[in-house]
């Protein structure tokens, strides 16, 4: 069956079996291996992508169902090759990852949250990543990473005169 969708802003199409999940099509047909295959039955969240801007589990969606959707994968977040998005960079700075298996899903879940608000509470962050399992970090540094990224985005979006000359990013948090 023919499927046409936009992935990271580029129109793509493929001929796929109906039983093939969006996850497998992203990885095998479009070679976007940043989306990770974990449990493949909707428990772990490693395969999280954004469908029309909302985080969804790509293992619980057949590619044929995604026809016409706008899909964002982890490959679509970095502003340019070799660069990192603000959230990706925050994960590195706060040691928000160890083995990295859950990281692409975590970052996309955080990205969707920070698209809606740059002043999330700790509870908002916990709720946003509650569907993503991490077995390395204990989640503390991941929450810290999202808070840090939110603080950076707030500052980046604040007109300069509003900032005190001596105010650092850490204080602004």
């Amino acid at each position: 069956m023919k499927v046409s969708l936009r992935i990271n802003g580029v129109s793509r199409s493929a001929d796929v079996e109906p039983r093939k999940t969006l996850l497998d099509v992203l990885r095998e047909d479009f070679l976007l291996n940043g989306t990770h295959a974990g449990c493949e039955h909707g428990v772990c969240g490693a395969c999280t992508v954004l469908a029309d801007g909302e985080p969804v589990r790509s293992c619980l969606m057949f590619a044929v169902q995604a026809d016409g959707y706008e899909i964002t994968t982890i490959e679509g977040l970095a502003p340019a090759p070799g660069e990192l998005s603000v959230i990706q960079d925050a994960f590195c700075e706060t040691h928000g990852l160890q083995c990295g298996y859950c990281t692409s899903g975590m970052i996309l879940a955080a990205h969707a949250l920070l698209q809606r608000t740059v002043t999330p509470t700790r509870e908002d962050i916990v709720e946003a990543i509650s569907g993503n399992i991490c077995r390395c970090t204990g989640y503390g540094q991941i929450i810290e990473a999202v808070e840090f990224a939110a603080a950076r985005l707030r500052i980046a979006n604040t007109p300069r005169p509003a900032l005190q000359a001596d105010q650092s990013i850490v204080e602004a948090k």
Partner: protein
Amino acid sequence: MKPAPFDYVRPDSLAQACQLLAADEDARVIAGGQTLVPMLAMRLARPARLIDILRLPELAGIREEKGAVVVGATTRQAQAERDPVIRASVPMLARALPWVGHPPTRNRGTIGGSIANADPSAEIPLVAVTLGAEIMLATTAGPTSMPADDFFVGPMLTAIGQGECVSAVRFPVWPRHRIGTGFFEISARRSDFAFVAAAAQVALDDDGNCVDVALGLGGVADRPLRLDISSLVGTKLDAASVSDAVNAASAGLEAMSDLHASAAYRRRVAGVLCSRTVEQARANAAAKPAKGAR
């Protein structure tokens, strides 16, 4: 974890979907797929054909009718959670939805899908039974409906027939001013299947007396149950009266026993959770202004 092969059809109309379902007993409906796809992945379900109803315009949308709110079957759980009409008129549903799965599954999972799946511990069927909702069905012979209490027959078992499809859920709206809701559940971890879930809605008059009350219990029996605690009407919903009414209503309750929780545990938790939920609903209603201000 790869599903067995199947045909995939996306009909253009609800009538066509019903015909496709009537013609093939191995056909299954797919909408959000948040329960069906794991079943397919584990090959616990092997339908020959999936009928995708998610894009049918007849099944979308939330509309107000006289004394009710009709929620289209393919309304996403996340969409219902944020919807101003549901928050204002079916507050119990709005309170229950954050307990359903996780944000990413609520972005895909639908209201009608949870109803049709009929998991005994699921939140949306519990709300439907507690409020006395009407399940609207599309059939090859045209639309029909039945009370939620008759619709749920047993675990993952409903009164739905071949060639039929849940089209909407009609939630009654209480014509009262001071309404409060409560919802609690106990599970092994956040958003996992509930061992016991309780939902309550109360209406208070200006003096704080109870004028209407509904209580439902999920996860305990093989389907959601409504408990009769109408003896509380006229009281101030004080802890002793609530506890007595809950004990009387749940006296003959048959609880399930499985590897997660014993029947005795479920019964014990049910009593505590029911009282706590009614109290949450009372406090919620009492916080609203008296004198008929809405």
